[in-house]
């Protein structure tokens, strides 16, 4: 006797639903496991978990020039959101307009860094936040004076109370608030990200070829690895010291190990098109110049990192690398400069 099958039968809408569900899960899984895609959330220390009040206070402090000795410059003076959170200069301009020795790094994605500053002298954002405030060549503000000045601004009290109840104004709460704000400065979705997520038209064929070179022949990914395009490591990449300038020992000042002489931290490449000029002393104005530098194996061969070798890239391949790098620019964060307490 023929018996009708009891196998599951689905209507067309049900089939489509299942198909989209499975496809969606596949995309989510691929995104979560793709080492080139940024995690959704930035990590934060347990004793300074981000809250809206902390971020708000941190943003005020970040933009407040009163944190500098002459009340003339804020964190945002050098880390200007309108310029990719840098200053557009070869090297920073500090206290009393003195020209400093290093290029201002972007603060985009510094939340993910396992070590901070070009020479790694700060271990995390809380450690880093008050460094430039007190540095003589930068904001030149002794921290006790900074605290006293902030305590004398009545309008700040309630923001500190909201952010860090019962802790008051101190160099610790200032550092924690600024770090909380900096953790919100993250790269946004770039054409590269859209391509990694499956949009085959998000980047050009040249850019795709450039990414292959980036991981292979050009050896860029040896140091510029992962979603933030950095190994959080230190390398001497053979930057020439300009005539009349002192040699910058870089990481060696923190770790007196031979290979660290002239070595600097690998910077992120996120938003790289927004953060010219390039290299730790801002010696190159274009990405093409940067790629050419690596292609010739650096300039100053003294104590050169053994990963840096001539690459033998053709002009076309160098252009493809540049095309790839340009796909790493996200849409800049829209930032509202806050009204400051009085």
């Amino acid at each position, binding site marked *: 006797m023929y018996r009708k099958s009891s196998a599951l039968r689905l209507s067309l809408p049900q089939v489509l639903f299942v198909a989209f569900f499975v496809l969606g899960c596949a995309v989510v899984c691929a995104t979560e496991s793709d080492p080139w895609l940024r995690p959704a959330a930035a990590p934060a220390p347990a004793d300074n978990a981000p809250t809206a009040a902390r971020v708000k206070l941190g943003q005020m402090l970040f933009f407040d020039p009163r944190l500098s000795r002459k009340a003339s410059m804020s964190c945002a003076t050098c880390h200007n959101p309108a310029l990719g959170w840098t200053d557009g200069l070869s090297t920073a301009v500090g206290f009393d307009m003195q020209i400093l020795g290093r290029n201002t790094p972007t603060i985009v994605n510094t939340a993910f860094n*396992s070590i901070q500053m070009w020479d*790694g002298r700060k271990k995390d954002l809380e450690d880093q936040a008050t460094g430039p405030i007190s540095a003589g060549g930068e904001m030149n503000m002794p921290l006790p004076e900074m605290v006293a000045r902030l305590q004398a601004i009545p309008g700040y009290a309630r923001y500190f109370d909201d952010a860090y109840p019962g802790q008051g104004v101190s160099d610790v709460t200032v550092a924690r608030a600024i770090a909380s704000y900096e953790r919100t400065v993250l790269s946004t979705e770039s054409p590269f990200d859209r391509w990694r997520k499956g949009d085959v038209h998000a980047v050009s064929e040249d850019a795709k070829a450039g990414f292959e070179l980036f991981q292979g022949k050009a050896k860029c990914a040896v*140091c510029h690895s992962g979603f933030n395009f950095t190994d959080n490591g230190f390398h001497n990449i053979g930057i020439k010291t300009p005539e009349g300038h002192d040699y910058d020992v870089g990481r060696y000042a923190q*770790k007196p*190990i031979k*290979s660290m002489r002239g070595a600097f931290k690998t910077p992120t490449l996120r938003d790289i098109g927004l953060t010219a000029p390039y290299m730790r002393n801002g010696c190159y104005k274009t990405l093409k110049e940067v790629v050419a530098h690596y292609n010739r194996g650096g300039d100053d061969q003294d104590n050169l990192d053994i990963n840096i070798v001539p690459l033998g890239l053709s002009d076309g391949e160098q252009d493809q690398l540049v095309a790839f790098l340009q796909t790493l620019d996200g849409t800049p964060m829209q930032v509202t400069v806050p009204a400051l307490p009085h």
Partner: protein
Amino acid sequence: MISRSVSRVVMLTAFVVAFAMPAHAADHAVAQIKKAFTVPVLKAKVGDTVTFRNDDEFAHNVFSLSETQNFDLGSYKKGETRQLTLKNPGTIEVECAIHPEMKMKIEVSK
């Protein structure tokens, strides 16, 4: 008679030499893979050696600024090794200068 005396001398000499020499020093292998040392904490003795092998595609370094033993084995590529002889008892904090997240300890006993 003479040959018996010679053999006794040889045996005695061998016995004295064997006990006069320190116990055979061990060699401990530590690899560097995916920006990590494969052994987080190594227990060893003075006189032992540690052989560090780079199994990553890029260069690594091994150094320590510890008071117990201060050394810099330099930077080296994939497949290459560097060897350290442990000289003093105590704890040695070992790092890779290139990748500061790479750390391990060597606890050296007498």
